[in-house]
């Protein structure tokens, strides 16, 4: 297979684009996709201070690399969850990545925040993945707002977005479908959130990470085995293999024609007010994360 642009030997084949690319042209293609996402969804203004959530996986590190190569000056944020066997590796991966590239990194240590995940898992009788997600989103938002960032970027890719849309569709979850977008404005105490990799698949971010010498962690979270999200991704991968381009068409079609319908019906938004302890938005007096922290302190 030859590169579509320069006719050299291809290194990456993309059935959804009916194209192959050599390493150099693939890097250009990838950056162009990120640039297009940012422009079309008006994600970043020239003077914006950008915070990027870095897990240590390929997607978040690829996003940081892409934004830097596009001329932005993003700051990294890593949430150290203190999960044995995975958090140490993830933190070191992110620290090494940022230090090698001279990028500023903020680390939020959940032990210091009174929210180490193993302890949360022992004390709270709800699914840990949902609480852990809530704690991470809380930390991202709080640091973004308190430290004066204009926008919070995450490495969610096309596979993440289509799997989430598929799950929301299976439940016909109108509220979540109204709120699913690669670019959400700042409102009600939430920072602006963007997903500049939404046009790129996991395969493409993995190839970009490989071709830009990014060392990332693949250690799965020991608490997330058998997550339904992974099963949905596998189903969609089968569909994509039979019909290349299905995922981007499903998601872009939703953004253009599906989401507006759900947004119009989304009239019963919860009334939010600042949490009495941390100031983050909540529909109760104390936010869910502060309630978890109190539970841990009491026991």
């Amino acid at each position, binding site marked *: *297979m030859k590169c579509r642009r320069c006719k050299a030997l*291809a*290194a*990456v*084949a*993309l*059935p*959804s684009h009916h194209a*192959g690319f050599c*390493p150099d042209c693939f890097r250009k293609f990838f950056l162009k996709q990120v640039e297009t996402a940012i422009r079309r969804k008006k994600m970043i203004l020239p003077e914006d201070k950008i915070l990027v959530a870095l897990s240590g*996986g*390929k*997607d978040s590190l690829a996003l940081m690399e892409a934004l830097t190569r596009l001329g932005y000056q993003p700051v990294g944020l890593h949430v150290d969850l203190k999960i044995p066997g995975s958090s140490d590796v993830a933190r070191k991966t992110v620290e090494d990545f940022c230090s090698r590239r001279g990028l500023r990194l903020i680390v939020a240590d959940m032990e210091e925040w009174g929210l180490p995940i193993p302890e949360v898992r022992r004390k709270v009788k709800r699914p840990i*993945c949902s609480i852990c997600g809530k704690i991470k989103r809380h930390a991202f938002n709080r640091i973004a707002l308190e430290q004066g960032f204009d926008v919070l970027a995450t490495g969610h890719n096309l*596979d993440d977005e289509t799997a989430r849309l598929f799950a929301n569709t299976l439940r016909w979850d109108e509220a979540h479908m109204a709120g699913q977008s690669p670019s959400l404005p700042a409102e009600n105490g939430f920072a602006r959130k963007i997903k500049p990799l939404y046009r790129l*698949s*996991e*395969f493409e*971010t*993995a*190839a970009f990470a*490989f*071709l830009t010498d990014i060392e990332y962690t*693949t*250690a*799965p*979270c020991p608490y*997330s*085995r058998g*997550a339904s*999200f*992974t099963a949905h*991704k*596998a189903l969609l*991968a*089968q569909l*994509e*293999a039979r019909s290349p381009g299905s995922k981007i068409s499903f998601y872009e079609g939703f953004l253009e024609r599906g989401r507006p319908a759900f947004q119009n019906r989304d009239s019963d938004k919860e009334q939010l007010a600042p949490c009495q302890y941390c100031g983050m938005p909540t529909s109760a007096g104390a936010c869910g994360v502060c309630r978890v922290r109190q539970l841990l302190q009491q026991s």
Partner: protein
Amino acid sequence: MIFVRLEPESEDLTLPKPNTVLQLLNRLQLGRTQALVIRSGELLTPDRRIHDGDRIEIRKVTSAG
């Protein structure tokens, strides 16, 4: 025979030589875009030939959780 390293499982396999990368992916029940195929530091597209004695890394791309 060829020698295959599967990641992220860190599993080593010795397999009869397939003709192409696509045949290797099929044998491992992987789609074309479900894994990176790496030989000597180079990414391989599904049409590339496999040679006897090749050492190949298959890096699955789906992140768990």
